[in-house]
């Protein structure tokens, strides 16, 4: 046993095959290519099958990690996928976008001395295998209950609720504002990080199970929640995300060339502007691009700009490298692709020409001062350190807020002071009878897996309500 353990620790962590940086920064194809079955089995064999698996503690939805990994090690890839689905409706997505290094992999025991098990890669492998081979069985749908549920928003949280409730026998209709389903998974996260065909296949599965989808329906404008109740819906789940962009309110922010990440990414991903003029929607292609912010959104914008033909792409961030909130893999990929990080720097204003087009940006250097409320050392401006960065495209990626369109039209749902919906953390119940909420609209912009976790709890609570009462 001791010997076996030592051997496992010697097997190096599998390296994900990837497109080379200088090739991939010119195309929109997915960067990591996926493990081969052999690689996956070798990687799976590294797992110690811990009795008290620390990794599971790190997963927000408590995936049975040793359980699915054991099946991969045995070559039972479909079995692994089925195991994953018990807790996670979108493993092909989570395997790609979860910040594993601070969740499951961050707590893996092997990570203490060496490299943690590549849980994310394995999750992705099993889910991709089941999808591509079409071998996994659809879950059985319970006998129809005759109850109707409206799910508003088709991001990861809404999709989870829809999937859980259709299987429990309720009728489910998803109302989505856009012409396509998937939320941030389709309009925000780029193709090179999450192929849209994966999201489409997940949605197709839901439709096969009987979920109705009404796209082009902005709830609050096209129809209100109260009208949905009048139409016979028994319960409503609100999963509308945190879709409002935040700007910095700096002078010159309305010059042509300053975009929100939402606009830049929506044009590129949802509207497929990277294939203009085959697709009709244009997107600005900058030569010298600056991205403000350092989260996943910022990395996506920066890497998109590179692929759209930029000569230089700079990420400007007011704190230091250690505080950059993006996933480790995204930071790493971005740097490999030639993106520069300009740290401890904050923009103060934008410059433009007589045609209203952006020509540059003034910045101030920062230094780290005392820790702030979040425990991170607060950046303080260095007096007199102003300098100019020449740029023709700036993407502002400094966060998002809840969109008040739906909540303004539903005054009996209580909001917190940031405009997020107040929902019971255990059940997702809002202050309005028959209405649940979860995901980014409740928490502010968080992660795919947290949005799905909230969806699952709400689905359980909605099921209780439909069978037992509020």
């Amino acid at each position, binding site marked *: 046993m001791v010997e076996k353990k030592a051997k496992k620790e010697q097997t190096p962590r599998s390296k994900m095959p990837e497109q080379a940086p200088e090739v991939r920064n010119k195309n929109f194809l997915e960067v990591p290519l996926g493990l081969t079955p052999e690689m996956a089995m070798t990687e799976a064999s590294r797992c110690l099958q811990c009795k008290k698996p620390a990794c599971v503690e790190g997963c927000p939805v408590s995936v049975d990690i040793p359980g699915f990994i054991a099946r991969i090690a045995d070559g039972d890839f479909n079995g692994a996928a089925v195991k994953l689905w018990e807790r996670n409706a979108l493993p092909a997505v989570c395997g790609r976008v979860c910040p594993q290094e601070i969740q499951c992999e961050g707590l893996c025991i092997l990570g203490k001395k060496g490299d943690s098990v590549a849980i994310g890669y394995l999750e992705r492998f099993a889910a991709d295998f089941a999808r591509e081979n079409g071998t996994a069985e659809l879950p059985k749908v319970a006998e129809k209950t005759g109850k109707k549920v409206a799910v508003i928003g088709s991001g990861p949280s809404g999709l989870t609720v829809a999937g859980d409730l259709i299987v429990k026998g309720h009728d489910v209709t998803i109302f989505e504002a856009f012409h396509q389903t998937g939320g941030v998974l389709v309009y925000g996260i780029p193709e090179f990080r999450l192929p849209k065909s994966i999201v489409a296949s997940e949605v197709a599965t839901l439709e096969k199970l009987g979920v109705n989808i009404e*796209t082009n329906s902005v709830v609050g*404008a096209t129809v209100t929640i109260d009208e949905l109740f009048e139409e016979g819906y028994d319960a409503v789940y609100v999963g509308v995300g945190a*879709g409002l962009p935040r700007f910095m309110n700096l002078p010159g922010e*309305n010059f042509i060339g300053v975009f929100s990440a939402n606009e830049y990414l*929506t*044009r590129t991903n949802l509207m497929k502007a990277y294939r203009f003029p085959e697709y009709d929607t244009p997107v600005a292609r900058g030569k010298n691009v600056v991205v403000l912010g350092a989260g996943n959104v910022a990395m996506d914008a920066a890497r998109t700009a590179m692929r759209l033909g930029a000569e230089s792409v700079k990420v400007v961030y007011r704190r230091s490298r250690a505080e950059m909130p993006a996933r480790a893999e995204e930071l790493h990929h971005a740097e490999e692709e030639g993106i520069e990080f300009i740290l401890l720097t904050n923009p103060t204003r934008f410059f433009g020409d007589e045609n209203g087009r952006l020509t540059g940006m003034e910045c101030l250097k920062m230094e780290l001062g005392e820790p702030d409320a979040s425990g991170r050392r607060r950046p303080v401006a260095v007096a007199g350190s102003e300098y100019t960065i020449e740029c023709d495209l700036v993407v502002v990626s400094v966060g998002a807020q809840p969109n008040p369109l739906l909540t303004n039209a539903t005054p009996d749902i209580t909001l917190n002071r940031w405009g997020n919906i107040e929902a019971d953390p255990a059940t997702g119940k809002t202050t309005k009878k028959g209405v649940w909420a979860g995901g980014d609209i409740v928490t502010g912009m968080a992660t795919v897996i947290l949005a799905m976790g909230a969806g699952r709890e709400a689905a359980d609570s909605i099921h209780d309500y439909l069978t037992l009462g509020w």
Partner: protein
Amino acid sequence: MFEIVNREEMAQGTIVLNEIDAPRIARKAKPGQFVILQANEKGERIPLTMADVDPEKGTITIIYMIVGKSTKVFGSMQVGENYYAVIGPLGKATHIEKRGKVVCVGGGTGIAVLHPITRALKEAGNEVTTILGSRNKDLLILEDKMTSASHHLHICTDDGSRGHHGFVTDVLKDILAKEKIDLVVAIGPVPMMKFVSMITKEKGVETLVSLNPIMVDGTGMCGGCRVSVGGTTKFACVDGPEFDGHAVDYDELSKRLTAYQADEKISLEECKQNI
């Protein structure tokens, strides 16, 4: 899904009307609101104001000028064909109330946008004077409907082929010199709205304009439709599209409308070759 049930050409085919089956939208739409349409999966999302709605029949009507690729594709669609997406009603509805004497000023396809507002203002008990402008008599649209939606109607053409030879602002100035006007509503090309607002500002007459910046989603999520009003940034799709005409930065709006001009040319060329 969103079937074209009626189609008309106006102004020698440069302007097209579509009546579209969209029952949910028709039930909720109010004057001043717009929809976003996509002709097909590869199409752009194009904002157009609803020129009319029929809640019983479940249809909405749009009237648009063919200016580029997307409107050209819209214009080529026939009765029985479907729009891939129609989203709405979007934007704030016009605040309609009895103010007294109102002047409505419309130019180009702005007249289509102005029509439901004018009609509602008249129904609300206002005395409505309308001034319509176009380049020449053949490009003038909705004259009949605007006549019945108003108490008094003036027509101006740039070339003098109908009505007053000159700009809508000439007629507006005359009216403001003679009467006390309580509200002016101006909808049309940006320069028209700018000059109308300059004149009414001098006279201190409240003025409403409807802005048309470049939009994507129309729900407040992209910020592409930013306009400066009274020194603060507004999102025209949710905070507007109507604003206090005296506070709008028209020059910024005009510039922002040129953001994609180079690409729009490419799009149009490519589409001409394919037809």
